């Protein structure tokens, strides 16, 4: 019952978590009244807001300002910062913030930090931090409180700090201008994306008609938390695994009931001999299976609920949202009860029908060791050729194959555990390998984004005055649009700091002017982006024509296009807005020194850096995303491994139970209890090793297929598969240890039975 209860518990835990998390994530997000659209404009004043609100389709419009900068606590290094300037903290109606602790609202000279970003900022409430914005000056601010901004991606994962200040503090930072963003909320059909886009198009016309520029419009998926899909996929995968664990547990029931039916075959014969029908006898065992299911459900539902709470808390922490209610919907209880009761009944069907179908004569004549009829098949005879000269080892080896259906079912559960474990390690290794490839293409150690486009000559002077830089290139990063906006990187065609992996066509080459290389994400999203095609892209309000010359593979990347830096010259002659640096030394101290020195030298040239990130910082963010999948697979393999261990324990207990007489015979022939114990343990270890061998054979193709599927669904990206040999080594040790552990108790029992009791067993 323990095994089936464990299976139902796992199923109940993931199913409840699925129900709770999908509900709470979206509920928590909707409670903030998230914006239907965010429109980036040159400036947003009260008159513009009033004009927009004239449209009855718009229920609210709230101006904000979002600027990027850097933040530093104490002697720590600068961290990238996104600073939100809110008009009236007492009256936030769209995309609400939830105050957590400390001050609310922030006073002049104070900053609130998103609760998940404190770890990134390495600061706490009450600390003095230094903030530097793109155009302003370094300014000390006091961290006065913590807020929860449900709609933001996790700061830890993005390796970024979200800060919240008021308009007066913005002035203190010497950032000019007021608000530049409008959070729009539509009045009706809030979850209809097409409707939102139509309303926003009308709003855009109003904005432009009043002489304002519209820089960007983003319409997030309505009513869905930014990580809702990701969480949903993950939880769905968890539920599938929960069901899988339940199926594996049912296999244990099949093993158990088959053995029980064999042990009761004489009793069945007697019942038939005195007039019991097959149906009547079968119903006895089905009722037994029914009680087993009911008992397992009663035990496992509370366990599942406890498990689901732990899982929900972990996921909520990981995804930075709060759970207001752990209430489990009724349908979850109903489904768990149904599946929990049905599983043992279904599992019982075959053994019960087979056991009750034994003819009376056969049932009543069943006695002695010969009942096992080992030796009848060609496989049995083939088995006599394996082993060796030491009969104890031979015995353990061949005994493993005596109940082959039971062995196959046991192997299935154990192999599944091993397979998932190796899968977890292989997927992890492959993700690391994929990221390694991705970061190998990036030959720069430090990337600096500038507040505005600046003359390259000035930047070069600053770089020349900064020691520790091996090579520097000025790039231009911007956005263009076809059907949707995407990032564009303009870089020297002879760049030595980016080595794209071209999968079709060619890379940019000296002399290219209107050539464009797109990455696989963009090529997948825009069907027109094919090698040899000419595409017309909108850029800065004008239409520009480009020839697609190549497609580059970039794992885990958003849509990006690469164009020659010279192509930007007509718009920004001699200017760049970002830097890529290859450094002489790449240790933390050396990078910090270069950052500080270069920052100072750029300031001297009148160039302001907006933010910077090292290769390691960018990598950290990716690694955090991958950790989620890795932890998930490891947890699953532990659960399945646990079921497998229980399965093996059941199998060994049944084997020992059925062979009690044999154990007695061995003892009568001079076997000590220790030898009997050893034979049983060796038999268990043989099964463990077999499961390892099967899992090892399957690990490569299955890891590759599932790893690719998981990463494709979660990140829309392929995986550079690599096999982790360490997984084989670890699992052989785990499977042997698990097998020895699982067979320890049955072996101990076998060795404790007296010879007389064992010989008397029928």
């Amino acid at each position: 019952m323990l095994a089936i209860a464990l299976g139902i518990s796992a199923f109940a835990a993931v199913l409840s978590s699925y129900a709770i998390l999908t509900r709470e994530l979206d509920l928590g997000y909707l409670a903030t009244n998230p914006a239907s659209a965010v429109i980036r404009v040159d400036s947003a004043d009260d008159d513009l807001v009033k004009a927009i609100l004239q449209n009855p389709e718009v229920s609210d419009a709230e101006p904000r300002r979002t600027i990027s900068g850097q933040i530093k606590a104490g002697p720590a290094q600068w961290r990238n910062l996104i600073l939100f300037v809110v008009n009236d903290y007492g009256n936030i109606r769209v995309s609400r913030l939830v105050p957590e602790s400390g001050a609310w609202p922030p006073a002049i000279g104070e900053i609130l930090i998103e609760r998940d970003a404190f770890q990134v900022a390495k600061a706490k409430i009450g600390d003095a931090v230094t903030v530097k914005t793109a155009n302003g000056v370094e300014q000390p601010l006091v961290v006065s409180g913590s807020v929860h901004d449900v709609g933001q991606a996790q700061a830890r994962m993005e390796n970024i700090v979200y800060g919240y200040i008021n308009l007066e503090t913005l002035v203190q930072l010497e950032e000019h201008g007021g608000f530049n963003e409008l959070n729009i909320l539509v009045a009706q059909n809030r979850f209809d994306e097409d409707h939102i886009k139509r309303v926003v198009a009308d709003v855009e016309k109003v904005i432009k008609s009043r002489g304002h520029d519209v820089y960007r419009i983003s319409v997030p998926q309505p009513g869905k938390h930014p990580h809702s899909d990701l969480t949903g996929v993950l939880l769905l995968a968890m539920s599938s695994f929960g069901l899988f664990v339940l199926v594996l547990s049912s296999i244990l029931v099949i093993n158990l009931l088959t053995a029980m039916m064999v042990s009761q075959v004489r009793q069945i014969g007697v019942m038939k001999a005195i007039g019991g029908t097959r149906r009547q006898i079968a119903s006895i065992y089905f009722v037994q299976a029914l009680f087993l299911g009911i008992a397992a459900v009663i035990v496992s539902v509370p366990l599942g609920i406890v498990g689901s709470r732990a899982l929900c808390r972990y996921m909520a922490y990981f995804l930075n949202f709060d759970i207001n209610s752990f209430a489990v919907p009724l349908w979850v209880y109903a489904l768990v009860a149904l599946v929990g009761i049905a599983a043992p009944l279904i599992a019982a069907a075959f053994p019960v029908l087979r056991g009750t179908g034994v003819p009376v004569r056969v049932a009543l004549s069943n006695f002695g060791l010969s009942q096992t009829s080992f030796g009848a098949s060609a496989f049995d005879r083939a088995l006599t050729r394996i082993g060796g000269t030491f009969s104890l080892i031979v015995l353990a080896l061949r005994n493993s194959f005596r109940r082959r259906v039971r062995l196959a079912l046991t192997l299935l559960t154990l192999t599944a555990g091993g397979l998932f474990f190796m899968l977890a390690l292989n997927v992890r290794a492959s993700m690391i390998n994929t990221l390694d490839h991705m970061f190998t293409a990036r030959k720069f150690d430090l990337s600096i984004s500038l507040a505005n486009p600046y003359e390259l000559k000035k930047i070069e002077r600053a770089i020349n005055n900064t020691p520790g830089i091996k090579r520097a290139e000025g790039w231009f990063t911007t956005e263009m649009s076809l059907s949707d906006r995407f990032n564009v990187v303009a870089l020297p065609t002879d760049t030595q700091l980016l080595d794209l992996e071209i999968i079709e066509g060619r890379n940019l080459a000296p002399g290219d002017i209107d050539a464009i290389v797109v990455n696989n994400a963009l090529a997948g999203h825009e069907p027109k982006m094919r090698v040899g095609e000419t595409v017309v892209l909108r850029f800065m309000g004008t239409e520009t024509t480009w020839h697609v010359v190549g497609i580059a593979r970039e794992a885990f990347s958003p849509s990006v296009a690469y164009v020659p830096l010279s192509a930007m010259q007509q718009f920004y002659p001699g200017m760049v807005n970002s830097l890529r640096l290859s450094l002489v030394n790449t240790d933390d101290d050396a990078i910090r020194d270069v950052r500080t020195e270069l920052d100072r030298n750029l300031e001297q040239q009148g160039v302001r850096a907006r933010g910077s990130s090292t290769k390691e910082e960018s990598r950290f963010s990716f690694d955090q995303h991958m950790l989620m999948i890795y932890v998930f697979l490891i947890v699953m393999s532990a659960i399945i491994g646990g079921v497998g261990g229980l399965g093996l324990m059941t199998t060994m207990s049944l084997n020992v139970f059925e062979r009690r007489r044999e154990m007695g015979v061995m003892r009568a022939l001079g076997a000590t209890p220790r030898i009997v114990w050893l034979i049983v343990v060796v038999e268990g270890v043989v099964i463990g090793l077999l499961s390892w061998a099967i899992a090892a054979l399957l690990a490569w193709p299955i890891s590759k297929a599932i790893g690719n599927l998981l990463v494709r669904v979660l990140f829309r990206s392929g995986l550079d598969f690599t096999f982790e040999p360490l997984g084989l080594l670890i699992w052989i040790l785990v499977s042997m240890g698990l097998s020895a552990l699982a067979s320890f108790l049955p072996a101990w029992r076998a060795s404790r039975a007296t010879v007389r009791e064992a010989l008397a067993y029928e």
Partner: protein
Amino acid sequence: MISLNHVSKTYETPAGKFAALKSIDLSIEAGQFVGIVGKSGSGKSTLLNMVAGIDRPSSGSVAVAGTEIHGLSENKLALWRGRNVGFVFQFFQLLPTLTVAENVMLPMDFARSLPFRERRKRAVALLERVAVGAHADKLPATLSGGEQQRVAIARALANEPPLVLADEPTGNLDSITATAILDLFRALANQGTTVVIATHEADIARVIDRRIEISDGALVNQ
């Protein structure tokens, strides 16, 4: 060779206490072929188990070949049994996953009585002695009942024990095969091995040296 003094054995059963042996005093000389005869449930198997150290007396003492076996631990008893007692069961009780030769080698492996390489040679020799040498590499299930019992006797002789005990060794065999098996035991006794057979069959008088009758746990005729 065998000495039982005031041996009693009582079992606790759901129906109450059951006295299987009642103050048995028995002495058997070395090289004797003894038949313990009695009905089902008379206590003959329990008596045999006492001599083999398979069961322990509730009271009294058992000495076999100079060893007080009732005081030995399970481990020591197993080792002692492996070297001193060969046991033959009614239903042969050959291990089905081992070949005939491997079954015979099993007590040698337990007792480590011979160097590793000589064990199979001895097993085959014993099998030839009981006329089933040709079946050495077959599995027990492919042999007839009589052949299986011959293998069981070969297994009982694996470590050249001074004592062979057999519990209803012919109970599951036809009369011709049973006669052949009893002749085998007679031959063993002739070579100096003490042989004790528990049986409910009366027609073993022609082969045994001594008949011991047991009824309701007590010896009624020695």
